């Protein structure tokens, strides 16, 4: 009794179940053990399609459109494909290619993420405006200090100037984007620049061979 249980799915239908489905004896469909053929024979020959004038117009336009797209600058051919092609080109094809290459793709880069614009250069911070700003600040500050000096008799001047300039330096707003750019900048990437060929391995040990220092 132990092995019987309540049973699960047996995986195939019983004769009774097949009968209920209407399949018995010779009517039983053959068990399929292989994938169906790639090009199975057609049971019925498909009917021929009629072509209206509208369809004809559309067919011609579509063919024309695909040809135009193939010649347009938006049809991107990779460098590897280009190499394969150039090996079998004659002078006429090359001349045609040159004509085609004249057209340049037009993109509205303002409406696209900046990373897609290959002509975009990272704006380097212009030092002059900052210097000017600092100058004006210093002048203002000097005036204030002069006034203070007149009032207080010039006590602890230098200390205050120092403190002020320090605080100014700290308050300088940092551009988060620029920081990110610096972070992403390949030139600053330590992992790219640093290469250890292993020659320096154990160098420190060699230096220590001189003998112990007491």
């Amino acid at each position, binding site marked *: 009794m132990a092995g*019987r249980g*309540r049973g699960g799915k047996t995986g195939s239908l*019983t004769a*009774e*179940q097949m009968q*209920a*489905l*209407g*399949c018995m004896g010779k*009517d039983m*469909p053959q068990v399929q053990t292989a994938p169906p053929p790639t090009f199975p024979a057609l*049971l*019925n020959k*498909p*009917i021929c*399609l009629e*072509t209206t004038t*509208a*369809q004809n*117009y*559309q*067919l011609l*336009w*579509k*063919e024309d*459109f*695909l040809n*135009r*797209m193939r010649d*347009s600058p*938006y*049809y*991107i*051919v*990779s*460098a590897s*494909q280009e190499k394969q092609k150039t090996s079998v080109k004659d002078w006429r094809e090359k001349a045609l290619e040159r004509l085609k290459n004249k057209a340049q*793709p*037009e*993109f*509205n880069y*303002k*409406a*696209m*993420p*900046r*990373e*897609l614009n*290959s002509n975009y250069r990272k704006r380097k911070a212009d030092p002059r405006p900052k210097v000017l700003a600092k100058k004006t600040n210093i002048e203002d500050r000097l005036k204030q200090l002069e006034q203070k000096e007149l009032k207080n008799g010039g006590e602890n001047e230098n200390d205050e100037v120092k403190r002020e300039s320090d605080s100014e330096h700290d308050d300088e707003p940092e551009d988060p*984007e620029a920081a*990110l750019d610096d972070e992403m900048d390949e030139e600053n990437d330590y992992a790219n620049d640093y290469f250890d060929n292993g020659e320096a391995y154990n160098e420190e040990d060699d230096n220590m061979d001189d003998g112990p220092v007491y």
Partner: protein
Amino acid sequence: MSADYAHLCSSILEQCFGKVVQSVADCLFSATTRTLSQIVSSTNFSRKEVVLAVAVLIKFRLVNFEPSKNNPFLAEYSLRREDVICLLRYSRYIHLVQTKYGNVGASIAEELLNAGSETATGLLLKCLSDGENKAESAETYRDTFIKMISDHYIIKIPELMPGDEQDEAVPKFQKNECGFFVPPNIDLQLLAQIQKGEATLSKALDGAIVWSLNYDRFHQEFRDDIMKLAIERKLGENAAECFSFILNLIYNTTDPWQRKASNLVTFVEIKQAIERKSNNMELIKYLDQYICLIMDDSLGFLRKVGDMGGGQYLVDMEKTFESLAFACVEAVITERFGSKAARIFRVIRVKKFIEQEDLQKEAMIPAKEAKSLAYNLFQEQFIHVKVIKKPGGGGSGPAKAFYLFQIKDKDTVRMLLDNCFKSLYNTIRRSNYEKNEHKGLIEKSQRLDSIVEAMKERGESDEYIAEIVETFTPPECEILNKVKNRIKTLSKAEMTLDDTIFLLQMYQHHCTTLPTGIQKFK
């Protein structure tokens, strides 16, 4: 989105934009969003090529982007999967525009499709410099362009947020639904100056406003045409005209892509509209009868819901596309398995659940044949089996169960849609294969045509031209004709398949709650 659709999208993009764009789109298809570095690492192309491919996809409005949630300076790209198939419908769009606005409209739409998206001034300049319609004035082009915008065939792409133009790593756009169809201010004088070379395009005031074709407005027109044609075939031209007036009235108060049914329209409103705009006296005289005819028809396009205003009606989109889609499914079954199989399918659909023995009696088909046909339909997933187990038993033998045939409407349509995607993909592949296989021959014939044309222009003698033409030997000519015919048949098949796909997609939009990506403003 099925794997078949993914393959289809891939081959369509390869046809239009080449292998690099195809590879980038494949990468985007398999994920919700991806960053540029992720795309570069998963494709075998250089960063420069990938960047160009993504820019092309954005220009043709096939890729969206938005700032990443974790890093607002990083863009995440996503493919507009449902719009890729629109590339196959470009010829239909052009044909529709041509019938509505003539050659000028077709030229505008063509330039928009070639460029993906364009500013109004840039677009008109391209149209004017095009050789085909040079006789038309700039004013005609401008008026047609504005008319197309007011009819919603052309839509404005969302503008950049003011003030963000320079500083944002990922630009943000303002979505103002009211502004999508506001016509631009086109300066014709500046246009003339640019044409003469006295000014540059950068001086145009509308440089920041970009326009594109509004695919869903075209789809609305195609959908309405399907309904009108169905009524015309079944009930005649007058009934179709009446229904077209009803649809126009409904769009005054209803979002055209409302899923289940439209808002209400009264008999008086329909009568007034027809009397105002139609010259068809027969329709005006027997209007009430035509409306009754459409309403009582088994297609179920129109439904009466009240008696106010001489009778209130609504267009039942759900019932309409259920009827049309299943007429299509039945046609497919008839062509593949014969009319008896179609009868079996209809019987199951009417009865909802039916046993094998009852099925053969109801369909009046010999038992053996009915079994074989039902099995074929079951194997191809047009029909399904529902098992109802009798409670109780618990002995060692199998539980008593009833096996009932049924049709799962949504599953059947989805299966057929996937089959259509697969067939379309196969058709495109085969067409490309034929073109590649006979590339040399096709190019030779094109070169010969251009040489002959140039010779005719130069006024060379007919004998000399005939001599040149003879370089294309008769066997070559025969092969070329065969190949051209084969490619034409395949292209026709592509168009017919796309018609079926469109109908089934409409079924999915109106009869299910699945996300279809169809909406008034995109």
